[in-house]
């Protein structure tokens, strides 16, 4: 029998039962951040376009989806999606219980927390087409393969970078 190492990194997926409003998303992300041990984190959910994308109202601004600023760990960034899922990699098993407690503390409704393998480890053709040779493999799996290259947000320990041009 192989005993799992308790020092290896683990991947976790957090799926709340409801889509999160920006204030709740901020609360949840800060609770996760304060728990510590994050190697990388990704938030996912349906797109919130700045303008009506098609139909007779195409191009009409959607004011509700603009300036959805949230602050995580002292860094502000703009939400482009309705937060419905958070995937993250933790340094080790010891942060997992704290993470579960943080989610339950931050969310007023139930949440599914799963452990598994959620980020791919080898560069795909899409990754190659977007970035060429990937030097920092932590970026793999953080990006929606269908997203445009100019819509990437990477949250790191040092800084938050976001490059999101209006479409």
């Amino acid at each position, binding site marked *: 029998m192989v005993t799992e190492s308790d020092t290896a990194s683990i991947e976790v997926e957090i799926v*709340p*039962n*409801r*889509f*999160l*409003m920006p204030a*709740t998303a901020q609360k949840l992300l800060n609770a996760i951040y304060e728990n510590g041990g994050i190697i990388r984190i990704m938030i996912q959910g*349906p*797109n*919130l*376009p700045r303008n*009506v*994308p*098609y*139909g*007779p*109202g195409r191009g*009409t601004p*959607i004011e*509700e*989806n603009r300036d959805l600023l949230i602050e995580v760990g002292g860094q502000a960034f703009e939400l482009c999606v*309705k937060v*419905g899922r958070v995937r993250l990699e933790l340094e080790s098993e010891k942060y997992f219980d704290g993470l579960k407690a943080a989610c339950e503390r931050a969310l*007023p*409704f139930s949440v599914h927390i799963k452990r598994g393998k959620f980020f791919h480890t080898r560069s795909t053709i899409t990754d190659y087409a977007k970035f060429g040779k990937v030097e920092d493999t932590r970026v793999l799996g953080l990006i929606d393969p269908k997203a445009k290259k100019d819509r990437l947000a990477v949250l790191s320990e040092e800084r938050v970078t976001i490059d999101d041009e209006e479409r």
Partner: protein
Amino acid sequence: MAYTPQYYPGSTTVGINRRKHMSGNLEKLRDIPEADVVAIMGHRAPGADYSSTHPPLKEMGEPDCPIRQIVTPTAGAAAGDRVRYSQWTDSMYFAPSIPYWRSYWGAINCKGCDPGTLSGRQIIEARERDIEAYTKKQYDSEMTDVALCSMRGCTVHGHSLRLEENGMQFDMLSRTEMGKDGNVYATKDQVGIPLDRKINLGKPMTEAEAKKRTTIFRVDGVPMCGKVGARKYDEAVDALHHMWELRSKWGYRPE
């Protein structure tokens, strides 16, 4: 004895609600002014003239046709209105109506309409003044819960997505919003163009009420087979099996 159509089998609450929807014998829950319904549909400004596609039938001099003599035209057809649409998205989280039942309701109860059923949305097309009346009926009746159902001409997804924190169906274009007073307001028309004022659609149903009025069979609500563990399946499943059997045999053995 007068014949009463038997629309849908089963004794579950969902079966009963499905029969109600198909028969058109629906409870009226709210009264949204006609001008507001017209504004949300977005095809014409409230009070504006109807655009027409042909002159009124009386002026056209129709050919001598027995069918035309039997069938009375709808108000919209008689006036020569353009064909317009209204399209609904109903959440799978116990919305009162679902695409097929909106279509059954339209096909059985609405004269001169063309219902179209898709997986997560439902569209009805008809002459403009007819579709306005049909849409108002849908808005006012128990077919619609203002939080779980909304009119969406484009960017329709929301049916199979999780609800928002406040219990509203997710809408990428934010066409409706939950007010601080607990009422739902329409702020945009069905294609996402902002309205000049917010339209109060009233209070949403509670979760218990939505479950009571839903036409969706769900394993965490009312399952299609009826009571779990019962000796006999609900009649809805028996009837479905019967139809499946006949269709299969008819399909395989046409004699």
